[in-house]
């Protein structure tokens, strides 16, 4: 028994160490990158980091715990409004604002998590969709607090003095967002390797079997929802800084669906998939948005073309890569290993099971 325990401990510490090392490497690389690129690229890098945080949280819930949420945009709104209200009359340090936003969204996540744990399949999707539709209206109803349709403006974060007077604010915000994303990913990656992570998957795969194995299904689902909501809250608070305005129209059903799009395109159930999905979410619209004023076609077509192209790309992506970008990459790697490298344990050389669900990170 003792031997087993110490082996597990060693494994855990190795996992944590490995994740930390990987995260540190990624953080250094991204910070170096941010010094080499322009202000607008930094602005986009920030957006990718924000969506990655939200999508990773959603992927934990949907991809790993099997609960589909169409209401994560509303949870982001809670984080964003928490941050905006805190910053309305006070100058607060960014870290404090982010932590309080995570806390408030997490608390609200507990309430919704309990409701969600009682619902399955389309009923859960419907209930979370209601959240996405209804919550932004609260901001419109209580105009004096939440600023109505015009929303609340958020003062930009000013870089600290030691970075020099000419340090671009976009780069500073990118650093904050990247740091937040890296911390989130380390925590999530460790969680997924823990017993909690295994419980999430067990509940996703078969609730009855999980319950028989001694897992409290409802509690596991609530926990997944709360962690997921906390990620959405963090993303929402960062979103408020990034956008400079927190308005209900920014957190409509579209945002919730965009997040689902991100994890499906990126790869369900994997943290890397959340990053891929966020890259698609940020860069494809950015590439097409200038078309309306530069293409020599009638305005009725040109005005709608960016949206049509975006939709087309999503359809093609689903046809070409039904398991998402990460799923496809994993498969290419598997094929490569099967054909040219060492045979993975249990696998047969040259044989790839395409129907096997994407392997977890």
């Amino acid at each position: 028994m003792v031997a087993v325990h110490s082996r597990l401990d060693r494994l855990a510490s190795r996992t944590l160490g490995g994740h930390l090392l990987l995260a540190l490497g990624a953080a250094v690389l991204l910070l170096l990158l941010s010094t080499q690129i322009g202000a607008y690229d930094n602005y986009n890098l920030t957006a990718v980091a924000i969506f990655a945080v939200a999508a990773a949280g959603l992927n934990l819930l949907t991809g790993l715990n099997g609960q589909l949420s169409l209401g994560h945009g509303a949870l982001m709104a809670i984080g964003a409004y928490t941050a905006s209200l805190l910053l309305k009359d006070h100058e607060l340090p960014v870290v404090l604002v982010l932590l309080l936003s995570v806390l408030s969204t997490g608390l609200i996540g507990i309430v919704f998590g309990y409701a969600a744990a009682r619902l399955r399949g389309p009923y859960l999707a419907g209930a979370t969709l209601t959240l996405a539709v209804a919550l932004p209206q609260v901001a419109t109803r209580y105009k004096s607090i939440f600023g109505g349709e015009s929303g609340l403006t958020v003062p930009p974060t000013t870089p600290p003095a030691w970075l020099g007077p000419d340090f671009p604010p976009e780069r500073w915000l990118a650093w904050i967002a990247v740091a937040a994303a890296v911390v989130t990913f380390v925590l999530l990656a460790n969680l997924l390797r823990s017993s909690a992570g295994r419980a999430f998957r067990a509940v996703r795969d078969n609730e009855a079997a999980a319950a028989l194995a001694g897992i409290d299904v409802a509690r596991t689902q609530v926990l997944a929802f709360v962690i997921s909501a906390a990620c959405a809250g963090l993303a929402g608070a960062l979103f408020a800084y990034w956008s400079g305005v927190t308005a209900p129209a920014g957190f409509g059903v579209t945002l919730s669906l965009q997040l689902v799009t991100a994890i499906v395109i990126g790869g369900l159930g994997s943290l890397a998939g959340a990053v891929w999905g966020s890259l698609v979410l940020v860069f494809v619209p950015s590439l097409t948005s200038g078309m309306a004023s530069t293409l020599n076609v009638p305005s009725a077509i040109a005005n709608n073309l960016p949206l049509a192209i975006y939709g087309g790309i999503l359809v093609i992506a689903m046809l070409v890569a039904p398991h998402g970008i990460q799923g496809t990459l994993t498969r290419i790697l598997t094929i490569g290993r099967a054909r040219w490298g060492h045979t993975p344990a249990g696998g047969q050389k040259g044989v790839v099971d395409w129907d096997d669900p994407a392997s977890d990170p």
Partner: protein
Amino acid sequence: MKSLMDGSASRIRGIAIVCAAGLLAACGNPSSSNNTSGTNTASAPGITATTITIGSTQPLTGPAAPGYSEIAPASNAYFQYLNAHGGIFGRKITYQYLDDGYNPTNTASQTRKLILETKVFAMFSSLGTPTHLAVVDYINSEKVPDLFVSSGCNCWNDVSKYPNTFGWQPDYTIEGKILGQYITQSLSGKKVGYFYQNDEFGLDGVKGLDAQLGASSIASRQNYVPTNTNVGPQIAALQASGAQVVVSFTIPAFTALALLTAAKLGYHPIWVVSNVGSDITTLTGLLKAFSKGAAGGQLLGGMVTDAYLPLVGDSSNPWITLFKGIHDQYISTLPWDEAFKAAGRNPTRSSFVKSLESTKLSNGPALAPFGYSSSNHLGVLGVQVATIGADGTETTTGPVYTSSDSGPISQYGGSASSPPANGIP
């Protein structure tokens, strides 16, 4: 699909706004007139020896697209017209307008794209009150000129907070006051109700109306948000209050929804609609589309509105003749390469803003003068009330009135100006 050459008022507006910008260039700044000689240099971000790049955010899709999505392409047509006639000091204009879907969050990211990536010289004619409020702080912190915001919110007239931002159309408070005056004079004794967009657009209009009509005399005040298209409860409440006149500060889609809902309920008040929500071509199209052909322009008969530009149907107005000519020649090909004249040959962002404050502009196509000065960034200062007949034609009535947010209403005595030859300032 709407014809591209139907002469919709929004297209006229798109061209008129550029025309005003061109006039600015023509008049120039007396102190910088000595700078008009010499060679073109890359004097500011967005300006090269041969081009000027300007940017704009527009609702090309989304709830405000009907009626407004054609403004930017029409402006583009006039830029093309200027380009084809030599541009501005030989520089061609690039007008880069991006879709924000009337969503402030999108406006925030698109504006950063224009300023940080495209590196536009100035923001030009960005549309919408809630949308532009999201970025006005940012644009001013970047010291980018922010010209002719297509919104009548008086938020743009704040010289100390937003030194680079200039309004364009009459602010909604002035418009509300002049419409309110018309109601007290021509529709006196009738019960009045309001239907307005629940943001600075509607609330500013209500402020002006209340100043004229008295806040306590209003039978019912109903509002909407553009993200919720069900206006049934609000219209039913207006009907229940017995309002015989409904003043509507609405974007076109919601004017159409209100008219259709009222018709369904058998409620037929006299509609008094803000200029931004009363374009006949747009409304007729929307009424037909929303009712699947069951209703159309006949619902517009008897509507009261106001105008700050000459009416589209006024073929005797030389500006309209000019605009229609530009439309016919350019709009169908939708050119993109365009020019924009700046004050002086090699302006900087700050000298451009200064010249806008110090140059006495002629009215251009507008019915009333502009308010620009170093202490005032209001656009057109007044409007003329207009009515829509049963046959769908719009006729102006009474004189042009001007006002300010707190001052009295006065009759404008000046005469309309004529366009320069060929429309090239």
